[in-house]
C-alpha cells in the first residue's frame, strides 16, 4: 500500500445502486421497452441428440402476428475446421450453441426463433415449425461419454487418431512424479465425482434489440460484458462492431454465467428481418435447460509423502464435462488444484469431454473448486495417515513468494501462509465439538486476472466527479471505484458518481470475470484521476499565475507547494471547476489500459458440520473463511463476496445437482426442484479478511470474488469425514445418500 491517508479506501460506503434496487427502479434488461416492440421466442430441441434432416418454417411465417423467423441459416457459420477464438470462447462452438446447425446436441438446444406481436403468438408459432430429425443415441455422463462405443457428438473431432468425445487436454508438469513417488512412505490415491451445478443467478437472460433501417443497432442486455455482447453479436450476424451499441442493463447476478451470448444475436437477426425492436426473455426453465452450468467432473488424485511429513509428489487427472460443445474449465481444475502448495514433483492433467447436455459456462473460479475438492480431500487423508494436523501440513507446504507453481508462475508476494496461520490461531479452530459433529479445513487458489480496462474521470461544472468504467457491476465495483476516486481526489465519496458506460461511451473493457474488475478498473481510474489532478494543478497555477510545479493537490484542493510558491488561498475542486472555461476548458481525462500484475488469490476455510444420524442431513454449524484480499477497498462487499462464495459451495457440496431423466432431459429445470440453499439453511458465514496488499497495484488490490468458493466443497467433505469417519468422494452429500452411507459405507463413493 502506498502512503495514502485512506480516508475512503477501506470504508463500507453506501452502495450507489442500493436505493434504485430496493425501490424497484433499477432497470434490468427485461424492463426495457421500445415503441413498436415485438417479442421473440425460441423453438428448442425435444431430443438430446439428433441430426436435423429438415426445417420448414413456412407455416410459422404465415401465422398471423408473426413478423420474422430465423434459423441457423441466418447466423454466420464458422466452419468446424478453423478455430476462431474470442477470449476463452471459440466462435465455431458459439455459433452452434446459439442455434443448432448440423445436429441438435442437447434437449433444449435452440433450433429456430420467431418474433411476433405478442409473446404468446411467438410461442404458438414456434410450434408450427415442422422439424424432421434423425434421432441419435445420446450420452450425458463422463464415464459413458469416454467409453469406446459411446455415441460421438462431433465426428470431426479426434482424440488418439479417432473420433472421440474427448475434445481437449491440458497438462502441467513440474519435476518428476515417478521419482517423487519412489521416495514416498505414504501414498494416497482416490477418485472423486462432482455433479454439474448452475450459477443460480436470479435474473434470467434477457435482451431488447433494435436494428434501425440503416443497420445501426442498439442492444440492451443482461451480461457480464457489453463489449463481449458487441463482439459476439457482430461476428455472429456479420455486422461491423461500429454499427452496434451494446448497453449494459443493471444485472441480477451472473457468477460467470453471463460471459457469453445466447439471445442477443438471435434477437438482432429477428429485428433486422422484421424491422421492429425485438425483446427476448428466457424462462427459468430455458435458463436451467439451455444456459451453461458448470461442469460435472470425474477426477483421480494421488499424493505421496515421506513419514516425516514431506509431500514429495502429487498427480491429478481431471475429466470435466464441457457440455455439447468443447471448452470446459480444465485449466481451473488441473491448474488450481495443486497451486497452493510447494510440491517438488507434480503432474496434473485436465481432459475436456463433450456430452449431450447444455454447453457449460463460467462459474465462479471455473474448474478450481473441482480440482480443490479432490486435492484437498486427499491432503486430509495424507495428514491423517501421517498424524499431522491438517492445517499444519498445509502450512509446511504453503506456497509463498518465490515458490514455483506447477501451472507456470513463480509467485510474487502472496498471502497464503497468512491465511493458514490466521486459521490456526482463530478460536473457531479450537472450539469444542459435540456428538455427530465434525470439523474440516481446506485451502484454495484462483488465478485472478488483469487485462483491458478503460475509464473516464470528468469534473462537472459544479466541481463534482463522474467516473465512467466499462465493466458491468456484479460484485460492488461501482462502490469500490467511488472509494478509490474519492481517495485519489481527496473528496467525499458522495461527490463521486460511478457509471457503467456502454460500448459507444467508454473505451474497450474486457469482461467482468476472473475477479479482474476492481483490479483493472481501479488502475484505469487511478491513471485518469492522476491526469485530472495534474490538470487541476495547472489550472490553479494559471489562476495564481505561478508555475504548475509549484502547486500540489491535497485534501481535495490545490495549494501552493511551499512558501516559495507564494501565498494563495487554496482552490477547491468547485473553485477550479467554476473557472474551467476561462482557464482552458472542460476538465476530464481517460485511460485505456491493458493491465498486468494481477496476482493469485488464496483462501483457507474451517467448517463445522453436524450430521443428523436418523435423516442423513448435514448441517453446517459454523463456517469461517480466511482470505488474502489484498486491500479491502470496500470491506462490506469483500465480506459479501466471501460469504456468497461459501454459500454456493455449501449448495454444491450438500444438495445441488442437475438430474437427467431416462430421455436425457433435465428433470429439475427450476427452483422448485433444483436444490439451492437459502439463508435459513445457512449459519452466519464468518469472513476474516487478511490484507497482504498487491505490490503491483496502486491500491494493493487483488481479485476477491472467486477464490471464496474454491475450498468450500472439500472443507465440508472433510468436516463430514471428521464427524462420521466416512469419506464422501461423490457430491452432493444429500440426505438420502448420507443416510445410505451410514447404513452401508460403500454408498459414500
Amino acid at each position, binding site marked *: 500500500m502506498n502512503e495514502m491517508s485512506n480516508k475512503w479506501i477501506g470504508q463500507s460506503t453506501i452502495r450507489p445502486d442500493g436505493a434504485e434496487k430496493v425501490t424497484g427502479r433499477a432497470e434490468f434488461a427485461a424492463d426495457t421497452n421500445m415503441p413498436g416492440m415485438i417479442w421473440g421466442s425460441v423453438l428448442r430441441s425435444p431430443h438430446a441428440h439428433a441430426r436435423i434432416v429438415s426445417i420448414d418454417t413456412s407455416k410459422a411465417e404465415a401465422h398471423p402476428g408473426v413478423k420474422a423467423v430465423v434459423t441457423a441459416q441466418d447466423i454466420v457459420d464458422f466452419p468446424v475446421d478453423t478455430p476462431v477464438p474470442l477470449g476463452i470462447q471459440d466462435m465455431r462452438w458459439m455459433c452452434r450453441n446459439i442455434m443448432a446447425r448440423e445436429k441438435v446436441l442437447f434437449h433444449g438446444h435452440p433450433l429456430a426463433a420467431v418474433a411476433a406481436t405478442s409473446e404468446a403468438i411467438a410461442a404458438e408459432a414456434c410450434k408450427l415449425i415442422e422439424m424432421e430429425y434423425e434421432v441419435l443415441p445420446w450420452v450425458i455422463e463422463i464415464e459413458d461419454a469416454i467409453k469406446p462405443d459411446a455415441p460421438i457428438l462431433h465426428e470431426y473431432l479426434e482424440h488418439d487418431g479417432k473420433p472421440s468425445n474427448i475434445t481437449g487436454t491440458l497438462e502441467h508438469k513440474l519435476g518428476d512424479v515417478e521419482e517423487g513417488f519412489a521416495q514416498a512412505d505414504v501414498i494416497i490415491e482416490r477418485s472423486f465425482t462432482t455433479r454439474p451445478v448452475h450459477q443460480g443467478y436470479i435474473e434470467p437472460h434477457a435482451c431488447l434489440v433494435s436494428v434501425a433501417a440503416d443497420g445501426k443497432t442498439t442492444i440492451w442486455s443482461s451480461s457480464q460484458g457489453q463489449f463481449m455482447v458487441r463482439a459476439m453479436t457482430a461476428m455472429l450476424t456479420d455486422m461491423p462492431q461500429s454499427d452496434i451499441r451494446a448497453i449494459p442493463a443493471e444485472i441480477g447476478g451472473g457468477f460467470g454465467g453471463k460471459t457469453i451470448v445466447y439471445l442477443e444475436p438471435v434477437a438482432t437477426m429477428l429485428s433486422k428481418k422484421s424491422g421492429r425492436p425485438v425483446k427476448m426473455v428466457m424462462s427459468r426453465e430455458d435458463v436451467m435447460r439451455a444456459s451453461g452450468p458448470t461442469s460435472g467432473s470425474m477426477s483421480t488424485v494421488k499424493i505421496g509423502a515421506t513419514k516425516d511429513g514431506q509431500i514429495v509428489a502429487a498427480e491429478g487427472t481431471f475429466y470435466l464435462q464441457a457440455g455439447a460443445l468443447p471448452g470446459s474449465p480444465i485449466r481451473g481444475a488441473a491448474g488450481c488444484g495443486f497451486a497452493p502448495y510447494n510440491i517438488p514433483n507434480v503432474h496434473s492433467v485436465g481432459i475436456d469431454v463433450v456430452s449431450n447436455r447444455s454447453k457449460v459456462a463460467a462459474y465462479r473460479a471455473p474448474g478450481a473448486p473441482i480440482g480443490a475438492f479432490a486435492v484437498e480431500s486427499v491432503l486430509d487423508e495424507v495428514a491423517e495417515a501421517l498424524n499431522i494436523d491438517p492445517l499444519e501440513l498445509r502450512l509446511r507446504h504453503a506456497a509463498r513468494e518465490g515458490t514455483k507453481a506447477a501451472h507456470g508462475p513463480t509467485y510474487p508476494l502472496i498471502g497464503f501462509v497468512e491465511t493458514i496461520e490466521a486459521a490456526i490461531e482463530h478460536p473457531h479452530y479450537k472450539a469444542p465439538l459435540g456428538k455427530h459433529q465434525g470439523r474440516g479445513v481446506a485451502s484454495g487458489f484462483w488465478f485472478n486476472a488483469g487485462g483491458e480496462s478503460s475509464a473516464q474521470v470528468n469534473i462537472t461544472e459544479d466541481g463534482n466527479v463522474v467516473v465512467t468504467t466499462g465493466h458491468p457491476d456484479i460484485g460492488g465495483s461501482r462502490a469500490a471505484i467511488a472509494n478509490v476516486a474519492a481517495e485519489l481526489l481527496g473528496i467525499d465519496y458522495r461527490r463521486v458518481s460511478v457509471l457503467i458506460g456502454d460500448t459507444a461511451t467508454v473505451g474497450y473493457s474486457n469482461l467482468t470475470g476472473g475477479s479482474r474488475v476492481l483490479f483493472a478498473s481501479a488502475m484505469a481510474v487511478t491513471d485518469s484521476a492522476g491526469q485530472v489532478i495534474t490538470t487541476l494543478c495547472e489550472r490553479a497555477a494559471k489562476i495564481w499565475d505561478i508555475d504548475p510545479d509549484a502547486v500540489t493537490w491535497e485534501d481535495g484542493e490545490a495549494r501552493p507547494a511551499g512558501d516559495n510558491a507564494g501565498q494563495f488561498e487554496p482552490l477547491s475542486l468547485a473553485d477550479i471547476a467554476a473557472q474551467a472555461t476561462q482557464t482552458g476548458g472542460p476538465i476530464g481525462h481517460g485511460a485505456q489500459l491493458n493491465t498486468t500484475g494481477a496476482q493469485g488469490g488464496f483462501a483457507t476455510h474451517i467448517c463445522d458440520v453436524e450430521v443428523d444420524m*436418523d*435423516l442423513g442431513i448435514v448441517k453446517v454449524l459454523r463456517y469461517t473463511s480466511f482470505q488474502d484480499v489484498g486491500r479491502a477497498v470496500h470491506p462490506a462487499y469483500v465480506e459479501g463476496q466471501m460469504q456468497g462464495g461459501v454459500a454456493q459451495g455449501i449448495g454444491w457440496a450438500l*444438495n445441488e445437482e442437475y*438430474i437427467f431423466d431416462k430421455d436425457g432431459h433435465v*428433470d*429439475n429445470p427450476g*427452483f*422448485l*426442484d*433444483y*436444490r*439451492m*440453499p*437459502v439463508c435459513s*439453511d445457512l449459519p452466519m458465514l464468518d469472513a476474516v479478511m487478511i490484507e497482504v496488499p498487491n505490490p503491483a497495484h496502486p491500491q494493493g488490490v487483488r481479485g476477491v470474488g472467486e477464490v471464496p468458493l474454491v475450498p468450500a466443497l472439500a472443507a465440508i467433505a472433510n468436516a463430514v469425514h471428521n464427524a462420521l469417519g466416512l469419506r464422501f468422494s461423490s457430491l452432493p452429500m*444429500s*440426505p*438420502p445418500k448420507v*443416510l445410505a452411507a451410514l447404513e452401508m459405507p460403500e454408498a459414500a463413493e
Partner: protein
Amino acid sequence: MYNFNYKKASSRDDAVAAQSSADDGSYLAGGMTLIPTLKQRLAQPSDLIDLADVGDLAGISDDGGAITIGAMTTHATVAESEVVTSKIPALAALAGHIGDPQVRNRGTIGGSIANNDPAADYPAGCVGLNATIITNKRELPAEDFFTDLFETALEEGELVTAVSFPIPDKAAYAKFPNPASRYAIVGVMVAQTGGETRAAVTGASQSGVFRAADIEAALGSGLDAAAAKEVKVSADNLNADIHASAEYRAHLISIMASRAAAAAG
C-alpha cells in the same frame, strides 16, 4: 396465460352465484398454485372468481373447545395469531413454515386444502388435528374431505368457508422439507385430542394425506416417540421422485412421527 373473465365477489352468495353461472369457473383464493398454473397454460378456466373481498371468509375465532379459521386467512396470520399460538401452537408452527414469507402472506388455508397438494402441510394438520371442514353447504371431517391426489370431496361450485380445529391435548408437526421447494417430502402431524392419538402424514403417499395406523398404534396414548421410531413403514404406494425414494420416505415417516411425538411431549 389464456384469457379469462375476472370477477371480484362481494359476498359468499355472490361468489357462489358467479361460479354457477360460469362455463368453467374457478375460485381464486391466494392464487399461490392457481396463478402459476395459469401462467404456464396448464389450466384454462373461463372465469376466475376472486374471494379477496369476501370479508367474512377471513379471521380466526375461539369458541372455547375449538378454533375456527376462515378459509381466506393467510398462513402468516395463522402463524402469528395469538389464539392459535397459545391454543394450538403446532398449527401455528406448521403455518409458519409453509413456503416463504411471500407465500405465507398470500396463501390461504382454504386455498391450500381445496387444492390438496399431496406435499402441502395443511392436509396433515387438518387430518392430524381431526379438523372439521366447513363449506357453504355442509360440514365434514377432514379425513373425508381429502380424497386423493389434488382431489377433495368438494362438489362443483362448493366453497370452503372455514376450518374448525378442536383444541388438542398435545400436538406437534415435524416436517422434512424438500431442499428446493420447501414442500414436505414427509410431514407428520402427531396429535392427541380427547384421548385419540393421530399421526397424519403428508408428502409421502401417492394418494395424498393419510393416517399412519401402525405409527398411531406404536405411539399409543402416551405418544411413545421411541416406539414410533422403531416402526418399519412399508414403502408400498409411497411417492418416489428425484429427491427421495419410496424407501427413504418410508424411513422418514417413522423418524418424523417420532420427532413430532417427542416435541408434542
